[in-house]
């Protein structure tokens, strides 16, 4: 899977998880300010990403994730895909 495909997949999972239109889920979008996601929403989104991609994302690594783009990067790193 290349980065564009990965991004598309992550965005669609996030949109579904946060119950918002996928157009709003852009790489620049900030979870709390732009997408109105609280910390539990974010944890749930991470659980969904873990399940979808078969990766494990510890709490420490979630901390720096403020935007959709950062979430995509994190999953990419986990998958060992080159960005």
């Amino acid at each position, binding site marked *: 899977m290349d980065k564009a495909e990965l991004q598309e997949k992550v965005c669609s999972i996030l949109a579904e998880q946060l119950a918002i239109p996928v157009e709003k889920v852009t790489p620049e979008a900030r979870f709390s300010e732009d997408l109105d996601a609280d910390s*539990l929403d974010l*944890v*749930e989104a991470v*659980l*969904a990403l873990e*399940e979808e991609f078969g990766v494990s994302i510890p709490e420490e690594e979630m901390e720096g994730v403020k935007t959709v783009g950062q979430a995509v990067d994190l999953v990419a790193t986990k998958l060992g895909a080159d960005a």
Partner: protein
Amino acid sequence: MGEERVALVTGASRGIGRAAGLALARAGSPVAFGYRSDPVNAEEAAAKVAAEGGRAMAVPIDVADEASVAAAFDRVEAGLGPVRVLVNNAGFSRDGLAVKYPTGAWDDTMDVNLRGAFLCSRRALAGMLRARWGRIVSVASVAALRGNAGQIAYSASKSGLLGLTRSLAREVGGRGITANAVCPGYVETAMTEATRQDNVRRYLDVTPAGRAGTPEEIAAVIAFLASPEASYVNGAVVPVDGGMTA
């Protein structure tokens, strides 16, 4: 959701846990009877459920051991389905006066009663959040509501369980998941077999019911809190003590 509400009860080979498993099965849940040291009685309880037409299994789980908790959930998920009801019932008690209380006994008590409930709840939550439905019922004690001379560790651990329950209730209450606790009074089980007769007498003297409770009387309340009907009960601490703390 037409999905079956699979239940895992820890410490369910006997006593309150066994009765809770049987009550949940009668209410329609497939039930995993968790045991630590007694597979025979856990299997027997599962067989009883099967004989009554339900689905059940026995599963080894030492709640003080993180790997054992993970393995047990995997087995239950494979055998019955994702866990939607967790009953944190496994309990450890060792009495002793504070001034001479052994550090190891303190640690054992916390590891089973408090850390064990945390480990099981954490593992259960991921699936409950995905399903947007779940019930966590923890078995605390009247010793969580008032101090008990000679039960410093037990009482502290059970009070801690109430904090765990209330915080969970706030964290996940918006997701169709509830966390509640029951506080049994004196119930005749293996745990209380060694209780000195004069202590039993003193306890029953301050219990309006004037008698010990039965495991089934505790199980009925656990089963209600685990039911779909209890959807608006969250973070509650329910004494089941014959009126002792009234």
